[in-house]
């Protein structure tokens, strides 16, 4: 980046969030508040079967209900739209509504459009669907077996995607090993449960052909062309509007686009605007979730704990359809597959498997919690089998500071970091040696006390090229192959005639405080008070400059979003300084901005207020330097030079900035109830330059509690018939403030050389480590009983059963 020294007055401070006054006083404007005239309401009828052929849909009774305008069925959807495009070319047709078969409980089967939601729901009960139930398959490994019920007969199997990725010389690593350590780990299907569920309003203007869709979509805006193609509405006639207030997304709202498409079709059929607000049951049943995975992992290790190489077989359950961006859960982590470790030889056998469950997609930490549950559990297993301390094994293998920037064998370019320092800090904060002594005392008293560690790389800002790793290199080598690569984000800054500043974001924030951070950055860059900056976060694809990668996901804002904002502000500043230089008869190099003025360095008396410069740019355009365009504004699209396509060896820099997390946790397990109590939770983060410590702290807390859900409570459970068992918050347990551990948070700061401010993403945070670190701590606690933790969530009933079984084994062993 060009050196441009800015005196930071706000960046780095815990500036209070600009969003909070309106949110805390109930003045936020969410989708449900939004009304369009002549708007009707939709209720969605959903399949009660996990797998069934739809022989017919009878809407006659529903249409007789007063107030019902129309019913949209599979036939309509087949006629009016095309299947969604996918990352891989397979004969799977995924529409916004079931057209031939229902493939999961909760799949939309019909949409009733009526004058209000009450009428629509009552009428939906009267739609008669003739189902022919088919045998379902729920389990990932069973779905892979030959002879398993087929979800998509044309495909001939339930495996939607398979890639074998090999880096380095894995066979040699395994032949040189002193020991092979193995584990099989089951990662559960869970979600984010944002406060606000999905919400869509669609309006089609038959005169102009313009389809406007308001929704709480969070990006990536690659879904704009995807929806355009599905609807057959050309992209300049398709307008997405996302309100500034969005009640949480965490990746889940990336997957709202099938519903945007469905409600657009409903609006077209009804001939007027249609609104659909998802209820909580629908959200838990059929919105989206993280991907469940079975991982068979093995490591080739030396006696001293050095890892030579790793083989993993990752089997992802993607639900009834391969919904874009899946199979991305398998590949989003390609560049950081080795985690924070130095081993050079790696094999990943990756499968995306369809089964009769709801489709999956991005969920905070996408791919990382699945990956690190396997790797971090295995590292502890290595320590156990070699009789080494798990901290020692990690130090032995962590990438070192002097190796940065570090190129991983799978193509990741770790931009900065000091991983050993992060782990040292975590161990120091938790007083590791003292804690191990305490553990020895606790064990002597018969208590189940355990310590867990995890050290992981926290990737941010995906390079969309990673998804093309789902295709074979031969396919990518074809001349007609459409490569995808890049990570760009846009921002616009303008100064109006009286000198006040507006910033337009396209980052579709969902509560992370983007408005605050953008205002802090622009105020710093231009040397003005934050009050003089207004940030507009409402996104509108018709009026904003945006791109495929635009949106909130993979912790983009703190890294690429802020870089776009700072760059736009700097462009405007450049113009301000040129006008000022012209006015003050000085050179640009001698000028700087502070307190709303441009002044000559060294002679602060020689100054011109920003207001006056804005006045010249707008009111007295003739006074501008020769050849200069009037006005004061700039729009940028910031991209990373590191976001390149994969090479023929499948190496790809799947993200752009890479942070680090080290965690140390102490737990105690109650042998009588199986309850896990978190005694201490230390979490150390390196997210580069910290822009607002208060917001980072909030993200760390949120990440830990989110991960805690997956570790201890949450599971989108299905029975063996594919029936969904967790459609309410009484069945799907989310941690609340009561369950949240008190955190001790530490930081290591390794600024990124790639971002304008040195910051990296931190939004996914501990959601990727908590499941692993809790599992490690619980296994350590249960070590005296010889219990291994290979699955989540660790509910008390499971722990209790394992303890009982272990005691019975021990009892039998003693008797025999």
């Amino acid at each position, binding site marked *: 980046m060009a050196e441009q020294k800015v005196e930071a007055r706000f960046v780095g401070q815990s500036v209070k969030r600009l969003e909070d006054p309106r949110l805390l006083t109930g003045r936020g404007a969410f989708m449900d508040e939004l009304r369009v005239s002549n708007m009707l309401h939709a209720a969605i009828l959903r399949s*009660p079967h996990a797998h069934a052929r739809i022989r017919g849909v009878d809407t006659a009774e529903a249409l007789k209900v007063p107030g019902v305008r129309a019913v949209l069925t599979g036939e309509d959807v087949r006629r009016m739209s095309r299947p969604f495009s996918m990352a891989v070319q397979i004969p799977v047709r995924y529409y916004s509504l079931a057209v031939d078969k229902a493939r999961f409980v909760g799949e939309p089967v019909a949409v009733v459009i009526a004058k209000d939601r009450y009428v629509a729901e009552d009428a939906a009960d009267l739609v008669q669907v003739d189902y022919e139930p088919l045998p379902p398959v729920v389990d990932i490994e069973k779905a892979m077996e030959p002879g398993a019920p087929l979800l998509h007969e044309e495909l001939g199997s339930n495996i939607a995607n398979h890639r074998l990725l090999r880096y380095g010389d894995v066979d040699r690593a395994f032949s040189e090993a002193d020991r092979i350590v193995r584990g099989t780990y089951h990662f559960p299907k869970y979600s984010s449960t944002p406060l606000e569920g999905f919400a869509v309003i669609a309006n089609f203007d038959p005169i102009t052909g313009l389809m406007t869709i308001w929704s709480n979509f969070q990006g990536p805006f690659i879904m704009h062309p995807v929806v355009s193609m599905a609807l057959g509405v050309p992209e300049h006639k398709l307008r997405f509007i996302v309100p500034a207030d969005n009640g949480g997304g965490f990746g889940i709202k990336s997957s709202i686009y099938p519903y945007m498409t469905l409600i657009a079709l409903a609006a077209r059929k009804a001939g007027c605007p249609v609104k659909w607000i998802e209820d909580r049951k629908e959200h838990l*049943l059929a919105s989206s979730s993280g991907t469940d995975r079975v991982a068979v992992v093995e490591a080739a290790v030396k006696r001293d704990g050095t890892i030579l190489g790793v083989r993993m077989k990752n089997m992802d359950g993607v639900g009834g359809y391969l919904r874009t961006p899946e199979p991305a859960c398998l590949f989003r982590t390609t560049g950081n597959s080795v985690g924070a470790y130095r081993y050079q030889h790696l094999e990943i056998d990756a499968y995306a498997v369809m089964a009769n469950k709801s489709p999956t997609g991005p969920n905070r930490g996408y791919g990382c919690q699945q990956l690190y549950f396997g790797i971090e559990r295995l590292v502890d297993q290595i320590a156990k089998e070699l009789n080494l301390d798990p901290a020692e094994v990690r130090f032995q293998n962590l990438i070192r500071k002097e190796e940065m920037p570090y190129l991983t064998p799978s193509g990741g370019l770790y931009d900065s970091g000091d991983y050993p320092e992060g782990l040292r800090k975590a161990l120091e904060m938790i007083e590791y040696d003292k804690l191990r002594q305490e553990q020895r005392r606790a064990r002597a008293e018969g208590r189940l006390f355990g310590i867990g560690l995890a050290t992981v790389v926290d990737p941010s800002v995906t390079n969309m090229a990673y998804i093309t790793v789902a295709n074979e290199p031969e396919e990518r080598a074809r001349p007609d192959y459409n490569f995808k690569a890049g990570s760009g984000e846009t921002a616009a800054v303008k100064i109006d005639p009286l000198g006040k500043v507006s910033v337009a974001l396209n980052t579709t924030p969902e509560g992370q405080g983007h408005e605050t951070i953008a205002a802090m950055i622009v105020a710093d860059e231009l040397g003005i008070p934050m009050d003089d900056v207004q940030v507009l976060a409402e996104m509108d694809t018709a009026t904003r400059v945006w791109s495929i990668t635009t949106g909130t996901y993979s912790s983009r804002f703190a890294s690429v979003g802020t870089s776009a904002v700072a760059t736009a502000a700097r462009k405007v500043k450049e113009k301000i300084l040129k006008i000022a230089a012209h006015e003050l008869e000085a050179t640009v190099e001698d000028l700087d901005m502070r307190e709303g003025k441009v002044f000559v360095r060294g002679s602060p008396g020689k100054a011109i207020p920003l207001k006056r410069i804005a006045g010249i740019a707008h009111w007295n355009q003739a006074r501008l330097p020769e050849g200069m365009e009037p006005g004061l504004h700039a729009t940028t699209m910031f991209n990373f030079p590191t976001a390149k396509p994969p090479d023929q060896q499948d190496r790809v820099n799947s993200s752009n900035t890479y942070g680090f997390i080290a965690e140390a946790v102490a737990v105690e397990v109650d042998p009588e109830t199986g309850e896990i109590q978190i005694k201490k939770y230390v979490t150390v983060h390196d997210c580069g330059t910290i822009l607002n410590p208060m917001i980072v702290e909030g993200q760390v807390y949120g990440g830990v509690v989110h991960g805690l859900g997956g570790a201890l409570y949450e599971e989108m459970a299905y029975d063996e018939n594919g029936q*969904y*068992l967790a459609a309410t918050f009484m*069945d799907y347990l989310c941690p609340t403030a009561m369950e949240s551990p008190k955190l001790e948070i530490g930081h290591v700061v390794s600024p990124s050389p790639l971002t304008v401010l040195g910051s990296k993403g931190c939004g996914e945070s501990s959601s990727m480590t908590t499941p692993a670190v809790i599992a490690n701590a619980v296994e350590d606690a249960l070590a005296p009983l010889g219990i291994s933790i290979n699955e989540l969530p660790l509910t008390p009933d499971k722990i209790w059963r394992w303890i009982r079984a272990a005691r019975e084994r021990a009892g039998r062993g003693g008797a025999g």
Partner: protein
Amino acid sequence: MKIEGAYTFEAPRERVWKVLLDPDTLQRCMPGCEKLEAIGPDQYEATLKIGVAAVKGTYMGKVAIADKEPPARYRLLVEGSGAPGWVKGEAVMELADQGDKTLVTMTADAQVGGLIAGVGQRLIGGVAKMMAGDFFKRLAEAAKFSGGAA
């Protein structure tokens, strides 16, 4: 979901057998049964109004009786669907003498689907047991009554 139960009827086996298979009595005793109409030998169309927790609704379906071994054993097949989802089940009923009383043993296996499974699964076992208990209590009363009248 398996439901098992045993109920003592204060009536001789032959009479209990008749009561258990009498459509009018069945309709009166079956909780929430609004209609039970014969559509063939041992085949009925039924309308049931059942609520599990917050999921209340009407189920329309079929009831069939099979493998009759009077007065000892028969199978009851039920399937129904409605707005809250679907139910499918099979029960084996066995009658045994117990002095001058009759012991009826039920071994049932039921599947539920749709919304009812998603929100009611935790409660459904309990509800089903309660409903079965209720059903048999009413049947036992009916058997006593029909005994008195005979």
